[in-house]
């Protein structure tokens, strides 16, 4: 069998697996690491549902083979919450702002948003939309998702999203719904 031994640190925990080269990282995470939070939608790089962090960068885990991640650090949706039963601020904002309905695309969005806000803590609405353009959602119509990102920006910076003056092309969301 044409298999390669790989070692990946996933969400801080070292994992080893024996994988065929053709097995994409998403399948390695789901099947070998049994972390099924990473979802596969299109499996050819269009939908963004499988987005994970590899060495800190958001990538599509369906467009990278597991063997290529040997030695890398991977963060999946299972690794973003601060503790059991808790939500990260990005996850909580998605809940508060109705940023999800069926939830299938949500892991990819949350990872994308996490990486985006780490690099650009005070994005404009146009930048938020551009950053989300690689993730497809068929339920929400995106407005709730954009509102969620804006909420995180407000919470983290104490300021409304956007450079001065805030260039807002959408109405700010109403007060977040209490959980």
């Amino acid at each position, binding site marked *: 069998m044409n298999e390669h031994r790989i070692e990946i640190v996933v969400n801080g925990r070292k994992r080893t697996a024996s994988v065929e*080269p*053709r097995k994409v990282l998403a*399948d390695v995470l789901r099947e070998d690491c049994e972390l099924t939070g990473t979802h596969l939608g299109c499996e050819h790089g269009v939908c963004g549902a499988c987005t994970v962090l590899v060495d800190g960068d958001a990538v599509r885990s369906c*467009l990278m083979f597991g063997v290529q991640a040997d030695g890398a650090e991977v963060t999946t949706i299972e690794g973003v919450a601060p503790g059991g039963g808790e939500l990260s601020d990005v996850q909580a904002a998605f809940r508060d702002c109705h940023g999800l309905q069926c939830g299938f695309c949500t892991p990819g969005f949350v990872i994308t948003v996490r*990486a985006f806000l780490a690099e650009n803590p005070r994005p404009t609405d146009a930048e938020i939309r551009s*950053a989300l353009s*690689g993730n497809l959602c068929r339920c929400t119509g995106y407005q709730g998702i954009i509102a969620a990102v804006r909420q995180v920006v407000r919470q983290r910076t104490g300021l409304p999203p956007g450079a001065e003056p805030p260039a807002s092309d959408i109405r700010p969301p109403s007060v977040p719904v209490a959980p």
Partner: protein
Amino acid sequence: MKPAPFAYEAPTTVSEAVDCLASHGEEAKVLAGGQSLVPVLALRLARYEALVDLNRVGELDYVRREGSTMVIGAMTRQATIERDPTLRAAIPVLREATRLIGHPQIRNRGTLGGSVAHGDPAAEYPAVALATDATITVIGPAGPRIIEAADLYDGPMSTTLAEDEILTAVAFPVWCPGSGFAVREMARREGDFATVGVIAGVTLADDRISRAALALFGVGATPMRFRQLEGELLGADFLAVDPTDFGETLAQRLDPPNDVHASTAYRTRVAARLVAEALDAALDTARQETTS
């Protein structure tokens, strides 16, 4: 697992990579960022006996200045090019074009060399290379050689690289002060390949155009330069150039594809408009450069 099985090679140096590729012959394919190749494999549009992965070849990941060119290693990620401050100052058009490639997740993996070697006729980097008069370095068992961007493509997704050659670097000439470039493209959705794309570049000397470049992508089997029309711009006072007229003239020489994304007539109209916008913007930038 959707792709067909393949053997996987992960060389760590260029010479190892050349040997790997040679040993597998034409049944092997070079894997760069994988953002085009992996979908092709997943959809089984192609299959290879072996993939030679360049992702661990560290010596192909660099940006450096060599005289009057910026040389970029083939495995430099698009995201790196987008952020590099030296490149931003020296070849601003490269960053502008990079931001139109796919999405952030794509640019974090996608590479310069992969995009140039893949040669999608609607992709940005091949057109940037063509417009800036870049040169491409490739290496095979017989050693390295240099290919002019104008000689690189001989059909859609087809290059003049031999089966056993690997693209190692692209050298972008830094255009002299007083130059301006602009990229304009129309895509159905942000991040999609261009329905039509245009790169325009001009250099102004004493308000007259001393150098001009115009490359279009998405309108033919390969990215296209329009040297005869560029020649007509040379020596012209920048105020005397009518970008709209120029766009109309250029569009008359096009015979763009007619497909599900756009008809020939539509692409022609879009091209006329985008050429006008890109030329106008390039002239503005060049003008600002000369007065600043």
